[in-house]
């Protein structure tokens, strides 16, 4: 294989979303001088952090050929539970652990039902979303509950080695997930679930537990997102997670993870999340009226996925000819 070809190969292997990202940044910079500022990029990163955390969990689920629409509900529930626990006077670390364990459990239930009954995850997690957001409403009786703890501002405003805390948290989650996915046998099982579940059974692995692990991990990360959100809005809000599940799935798909065969990875998800965050931020910074934002974001998402899918199809053909 010649050098030139491997360079071409590399260009081909660049995820399409990256081109899209670069194009968007270029266009937005032309449209608004305030957009291309260091402080704004920092702002974007901080805003993208919670979405990244939940999207990483969703990516893992998608890699295992599932889908998780319950993350939004879990986020709402987590913000409410955490604040409720704090109001009850439970020490903050204990409250965090309790909340995250519940989030983990919610995901686990999803996984168990999906695997045990062979039910499409779409409908299971849809039902679970209804349940969790309902529970959040029942707990708060519809109110948003306020609580302040100095830790909140530490989570959202402090820095670790000059890096804003939300980004540190997202970074840690990313690294841990990376290791779990690519350096442990559990990660290999995720790809197995997505690519060839038969191989899992032949390898002597209990498929149900594998699925439970995948979904509970997604639940856990949705829980962490909920904690960040609660700190950001200093309250437990029973509707705070509405719509996040779709953003997370969209970011994952834009990032090149697909619904089948366990193709994709969490690296692309970062790009997908960034693309969404940048579009939203830029539309606000440019001052595009909210009337137009929804249609614009929708078209961008569609465009990103059309590009991704069609480039993938092309690539598949290319590889086939090389065989």
């Amino acid at each position, binding site marked *: 294989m010649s050098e030139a070809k491997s360079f071409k190969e590399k260009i081909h292997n660049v995820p399409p979303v990256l081109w899209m990202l670069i194009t968007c940044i270029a266009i937005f910079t032309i449209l608004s001088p305030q957009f291309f500022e260091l402080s704004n990029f920092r702002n974007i990163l901080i805003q993208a952090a919670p979405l990244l955390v939940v999207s990483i969990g969703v990516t893992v689920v998608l*890699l295992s050929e599932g889908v998780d629409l319950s993350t939004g509900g879990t986020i709402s529930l987590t913000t409410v539970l955490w604040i409720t626990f704090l109001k009850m006077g439970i020490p903050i670390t204990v409250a965090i652990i309790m909340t995250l364990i519940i989030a983990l459990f919610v995901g686990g239930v999803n996984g168990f039902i999906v695997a045990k009954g062979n039910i499409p995850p779409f409908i299971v997690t849809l039902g679970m979303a209804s349940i969790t957001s309902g529970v959040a409403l029942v707990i708060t009786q519809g109110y948003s509950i306020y609580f302040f703890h100095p830790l909140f501002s530490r989570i959202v405003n402090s820095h670790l080695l000059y890096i804003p805390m939300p980004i540190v948290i997202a970074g840690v989650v990313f690294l841990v997930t990376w*290791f779990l996915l690519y*350096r*442990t*046998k559990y990660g*290999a*099982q995720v*790809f*197995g679930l*997505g*690519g*060839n579940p*038969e*191989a*899992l*059974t*032949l*390898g*002597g*692995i209990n498929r149900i537990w594998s699925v439970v692990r995948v979904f509970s991990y997604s639940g856990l990360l949705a829980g962490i997102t909920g904690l960040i959100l609660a700190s950001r809005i200093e309250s437990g809000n029973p509707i705070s997670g509405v719509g996040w599940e779709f953003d997370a799935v969209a970011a994952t798909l834009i990032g090149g993870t697909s619904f089948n*065969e*366990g*193709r*994709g990875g969490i690296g692309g998800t970062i790009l997908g999340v960034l693309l969404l965050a940048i579009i939203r931020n830029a539309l606000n910074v440019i001052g595009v009226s909210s009337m137009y934002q929804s249609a614009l974001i929708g078209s961008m998402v569609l465009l990103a996925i059309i590009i991704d899918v069609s480039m993938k199809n092309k690539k598949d*053909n290319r*590889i*086939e*000819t090389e*065989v």
Partner: protein
Amino acid sequence: MQNPILSAQGISKRFPGVQALDKVDFDLYPGEVHIIVGENGAGKSTLSKCILGAYLPEEGEIYIEGKKVSIKSSKDALGFGITAVYQEFNLIPYLSVAQNIYFNREFMSKIPGMVDMKKMHEEAKKILSSLNVDYIDTKTKVKHLGVAEKQMVEIAKALSFKPKIIIFDEPTAPLSEREIEAFFKQIHKLKAAGIAIVYVSHRMHEFDQIGDRITVLRDGKYIGTVRVDSISDDELVKMMVGRDVSQVYKRTENEHTGEALRTENICDKKGKVRNVNITVNKGEIVGLAGLVGAGRTELARLIYGVDDIYKGNVYIKGEKVSVKSPEQMVKLGLGLLPEDRKGLGLALKMSVAWNIVSVSLRDMFPKLFINSQKISDAAEENIKELRIMTPSPHRIIKFLSGGNQQKVVIAKWLNTDSDILIFDEPTRGIDVGAKMEIYTLMDKLAAEGKAILMISSELQEVIGLSDRLYILHEGKIVSESKRGELSEEEIGLRMLTVEA
């Protein structure tokens, strides 16, 4: 002589409606290649699955190194040193080669929970280089490997268990000739290392090269075990099918009147079909032989309009057509019975009747609305005519046996007025009885004046049925011959190389 490492006695296994194995005996010595042959549906795979613990036999005992054992799962089998290389790959597409080889048996590093990737790649590399395939990078994702490479990874995976017994289920089916040769070298190496090999196959020409003994099964029954060097091919076939070959392939003499289908220098975009010229006349069965990967199925897909033609022309009944889609070709009277029955031929969730009428539906009811009774009646008729074994036309087709499913695929096309039919591997995976019926049917169709192009890997079938025979090699037609012009050996040779 040593004691057998594995001995199975009186194994029986029943599936709903089928006695898959009926008191079968089988034994295996270290360092031997023991071939299991039989027509499709004879019970070859079932037997190997019983040894592997995937099925639990209802009767019979299995002894390993003289001890009676019970193998209940693949885990148990591994414990006894039995592993397998499956016909359908059990690899995970988006994991690397090394990860696949050591799936769920990863080397752990000192950090708890973490896999020692370095060691895993090293060990994987060692196994691959022992197989002389160092060119496979252990870090490549399996998805990006070719079929032969995947096969090698499967073998490496099997070897990584350090097994005493390896079961190969039709291992050469996806391989090209060059790859088969390399593969046989590996088999010899494994033999030399004292590993016992069970080799499930129906490719008779391979047996001399690698086999020691052959066990023949027919319809789930044990027929006998013979040494490879002590039996001729004809005798073996007789053991397999239980009757003379000449009776199996009976052809009615008929006239071939005029051209039905002709291609002129057609090529596809991927270079798998190159400048192919074939002609099929009315009332003629034309065979298309070639190794897997020679471009046979690709050619059929081109003619049928599934894939786009890159260059060249197709003539139907002498008229040039620009091939756009299967819909259009069906209207012109062409039909294709695909090779992959479950994947391409049938809607498994639906009933026999709906499958039977799936192609002809719009012809039967040009006015949009359908009449269920008429469909049932039409299906009943086909079921009777083709002797499809089903309790009712409304039976979900998933529950039918392979042979009956194939008959349904044929029935689909009988209902259309297609006069050109392409049969792609019409008898793959079906039992002898059904095979004969399908041969008879094809003969009858030809006698009625239909033009048939038959793609098959089973040489005898091609030889026995075809009026004319094309041989395809790497996308090119390398030979055209009339019935009886070429012997089986000559055909085999031409399939492999251009010369000879």
